């Protein structure tokens, strides 16, 4: 069974993914609402896995909610909270419930989140998780035992084109491709010249790249991310553009910037698609797509 997302990746079309964040608690209304908005507009929806190390409803549960609504889910799996046995078991369960896509992540460090005294597991890393998926698809678990019924996933990973220095990041990127990553969703990119340089390098490797688009909702947010979020760099001209916009129109400006970035990427065929992260403003994803002419 090939996942719908994998079919989209292989179709040659410009692929669009977005994401939803599960709630802290059992009230799933807002997440379900976001799923309703997104499910027919994008090729697949990621569900974050305790993003920023903040404990939440599980990614697996969010993916099931997407399945229930007929959407296509990408299960985000970090290595921060589960050892190899728990990760393998979740892969078995996800497959059994028809989830066909996994994004393999190392996971943020525990102390950046809201359970600062918790133990960070990191029994595996993102690369080893990718290899685990391939091994389990071939019928064997990490203990070397035969599986009764195997898994099948379209497995991907992330890469940070703006990482400084970039060289160590690129080595890991290559290792992830070798480990079987079929697609990459990148950290947010704003500097298209830099991204084009990254893509010149990435094109040599056999994988699909979905450029990360994070909605800018104010000049302050853009400046904050540049100064504080590893791997994010918003060029000064975009910060100036946001700063020059009246407060009541700044969200529309952010949507316009995201839209034109996507349109440029698509028109110039720089990469194979985009991954849109609206971070709490999922309602405007359709507006971003409209602004991109999609």
């Amino acid at each position, binding site marked *: 069974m090939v996942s719908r997302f994998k079919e989209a990746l292989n179709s040659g079309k410009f692929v669009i993914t977005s994401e939803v964040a599960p709630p802290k608690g059992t009230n799933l209304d807002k997440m379900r609402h976001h799923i309703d908005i997104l499910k027919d507009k994008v090729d697949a929806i990621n569900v974050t896995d305790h993003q920023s190390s903040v404990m939440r409803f599980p990614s697996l549960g969010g993916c099931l909610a997407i399945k229930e609504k007929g959407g296509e889910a990408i299960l985000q799996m970090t290595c*921060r909270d589960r050892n*190899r046995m728990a990760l393998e078991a979740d892969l078995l369960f996800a497959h059994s419930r028809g989830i066909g896509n996994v994004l393999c992540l*190392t*996971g*943020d*460090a525990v*102390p*950046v989140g809201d359970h600062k005294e918790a133990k*960070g597991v*990191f*029994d*595996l*890393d*993102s*690369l*080893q998780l990718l*290899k685990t998926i391939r091994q389990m698809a071939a019928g064997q678990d*990490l203990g070397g035992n035969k599986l009764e019924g195997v898994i099948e996933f379209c497995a991907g990973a*992330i890469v*940070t084109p703006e*990482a*400084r*220095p970039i*060289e*160590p*990041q690129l*080595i*890991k990127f*290559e*290792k992830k491709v*070798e*480990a079987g990553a079929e697609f990459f969703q990148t*950290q947010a990119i704003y500097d298209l010249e830099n991204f084009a340089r990254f893509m010149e390098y990435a094109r040599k490797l056999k994988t699909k790249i979905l450029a990360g688009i994070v909605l800018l909702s104010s000049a302050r947010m853009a400046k904050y991310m540049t100064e504080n979020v*590893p*791997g994010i760099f918003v060029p000064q001209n975009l910060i100036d553009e946001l700063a020059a916009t009246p407060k009541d129109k700044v969200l529309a400006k952010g949507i316009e910037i995201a839209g034109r970035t996507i349109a440029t990427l698509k028109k110039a065929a720089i990469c194979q698609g985009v991954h849109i992260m609206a971070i709490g403003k999922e309602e405007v994803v359709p507006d971003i797509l409209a602004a991109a002419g999609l």
Partner: protein
Amino acid sequence: MKSITKQKTTEEIQQGLKGLDRVFVVGCGTCTTMTKTGGIDQVEEIKGRLQQMGKRVTGSTVIPTACDDMTELSLKENEQFIRSADCILSLACALGVHRMSLSLGKPVIPGVDTLFIGVEETPGFFREACAQCGQCILGETAGICPITACHKGLVNGPCGGTNNGRCEVDKEKDCAWTLIYNRLNAQGRLELMHRYQPPRNHHVALKPRAVKIV
């Protein structure tokens, strides 16, 4: 190599000594002397604090190296003062606590927390250098241990939290994998970083680890 410790707070020590009024204090002449957490001066200082807490100090000593087999002898020399105490308050590291607990049968209460096994990089600055994982890969990582120096203990390269060569958990902390990259690059051995490192074996030796050297 040194056992790096930090003194517990007065409140924590008070909590540890709850119900134990007569106290014999033991420091160590090696690691805790060097880190100024359990040498002669600190033993004298804590005796004053214990008296302020209303404790009775029956005596004190600083054992040359509290983790070795001479500890039993040192305690024997002080036996009458220890016998008259309810407990020993240790300003040696956990290895010393372990050793002291083997003789005289008195409860040993730690007055310091043992943090890590480290080296003194510059005077007074100690850094963890080895996690004693039992599967040394330093030969492939240019002598920088990713198990120890990377916050997440990653063995296949940097995570996405690396920022201008610093770590996401502490902007003052170097990213281990940036350091490894730079040194391997300088050595012309970057191909080592391209090598896939399989999942670690966490049971090279079953805990508690022990080995007999003949």
